[in-house]
């Protein structure tokens, strides 16, 4: 099999997926996903519930192993490397989880400082300064001694972003950044992502089903449905797309009844007959 890096001539690609397939047991969830992410761009992975978008994100960070295909991150295929090598790549990436996943037994400050304490030999005083800086970046200055349980949903999410930022990652992953937040708080998180994008020129991958948020933060979008890529393009291309599946998702048209038209007719007539 050809395991050459597909983009050696274009070193600007940070992530390249080639024919990525992921299965849980017998059931295949992702059927050959293939796209590239350029350095510094924000890519939004859109999709409904059960589309496989979360599985795609988990595979991108190495939490799920693909059944076949390649995932090139900074020139290394993470599907084919050892755990130690994968850990080295992970030190340069950050991820904000849907439920924020802060460690409940640690303060916010300890949460943010954890990767620094684990992976660097920095002095405690330096770590202290860095964690204050990270908390300030996400608008949580002064909260380092709070426990996660004392924070609101939006603040937890911000703290999780601060933790993801602590190692100054090159790539930042977001799983449903606005899930479970009210619209105003969610808009605040969108704003935060935009600020990070502007300030650090990071490559950002966001998985979401929130259309407004997606169009606000994305440079490019990938629409996924039932484990396949339906469309990929810039926000403008997506907005003007005439592909029926894209239109259905963007215009929020409900899925037609799973039954065929004949079954539907029969249900109707039966209802009519019963009433009669």
């Amino acid at each position, binding site marked *: 099999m050809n395991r050459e890096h597909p983009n050696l001539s274009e070193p600007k690609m940070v992530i390249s997926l080639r024919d990525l397939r992921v299965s849980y047991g017998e059931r295949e969830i992702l059927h050959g996903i293939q796209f590239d992410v350029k350095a510094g761009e924000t890519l939004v992975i859109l999709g409904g519930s059960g589309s496989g978008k979360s599985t795609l994100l988990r595979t991108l960070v190495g939490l799920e192993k693909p059944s076949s295909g390649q995932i090139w991150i900074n020139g290394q295929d993470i599907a084919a490397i050892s755990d130690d090598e994968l*850990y080295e790549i992970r030190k340069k*990436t950050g991820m904000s989880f*849907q439920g924020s996943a802060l460690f409940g037994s640690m303060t916010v400050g300890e949460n943010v400082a954890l990767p620094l304490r684990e992976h660097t030999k920095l002095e405690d005083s330096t770590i202290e300064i860095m964690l204050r800086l990270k908390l300030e970046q996400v608008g949580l200055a002064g909260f380092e001694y709070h426990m996660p349980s004392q924070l609101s949903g939006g603040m937890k999410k911000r703290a999780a972003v601060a933790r993801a930022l602590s190692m100054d990652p090159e790539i930042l992953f977001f799983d449903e950044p606005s899930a479970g937040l009210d619209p105003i708080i969610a808009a605040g998180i969108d704003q935060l992502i935009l600020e990070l994008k502007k300030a650090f020129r990071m490559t950002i991958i966001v998985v979401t089903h929130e259309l407004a948020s997606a169009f606000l933060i994305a440079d490019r979008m990938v629409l996924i449905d039932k484990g396949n890529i339906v469309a990929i393009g810039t926000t403008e291309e997506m907005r003007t797309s005439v592909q029926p599946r894209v239109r259905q998702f963007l215009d929020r048209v409900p899925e037609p009844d799973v039954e065929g038209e004949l079954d539907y007719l029969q249900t109707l007539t039966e209802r009519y007959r019963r009433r009669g």
Partner: protein
Amino acid sequence: MAAENVMEVVSQLGAGVTDSLAYLGALATLGSRAAYYTFIGPFQGKQLRVQSAASQAMEVGVRALPILSLITFFIGLILALQSAYELSKLGAMNLVAKAVALSMSRELGPLITAIVVIGRSGSAFAAEIGTMKVTEEIDALEVMAINPVHFLVAPKFLAMMVMLPCLTIWANTMGILGGALFGVTQADFTLGRYMQASIESLYLRDILSGLIKSVMFGVTITAVGCLEGLSTGGGAEQVGRSTTRAVVISILLVVVVDLVFTGIFFFLGNG
């Protein structure tokens, strides 16, 4: 029909055996990975989490002392009563001390300690790690390039391997003291003579075999608790299920390990 039923039973039996073997394999894998981070990792630049292990040891060991003391004191007293029932018929009440000392150090000290630790700590390991699994904290550790076994499991292993033998020695002592309460009040012993008789009836191998077993119990309890926690799937209700499983499977495996090691000691001629 009968043949089909037999086939059904055999195939279910086969599936059960395969599942059990797979479970033991998973336990062994987790145990050896934790052992790697405890004994070999520190020499390869993977720092040992002494601080975390110390706080676990505090939780697993020191905090268990009051309840363990109470239970083993009573067990010692019960053993004295039960053996006196038979020994008094033979007019050999002076052997009560020996009976209590031997059965505590060889068997009941380690076993009761293990069961108390399962109830307090084995279940807590499963609940703690299970909750972290459900709230994606384990995934978060992975993504931050922090190995969950190194970070969470290894300190617990170290703490349990050190604390279970210590607790067992304490349990033996408390059991003997419980026996002494009976000896002094009902069997014409003084406390000094009772303790003297207990110590004289014990060989080092009696105590050591109990301690070796207790180390193995510690390893078993940690492996089961952590494995159940790590394999928690789905939502919060699964954490409760994992905790129950951790307790039940730990008790079963501790008794099996007990049997195996007692057998080994017996046939090695140390019995």
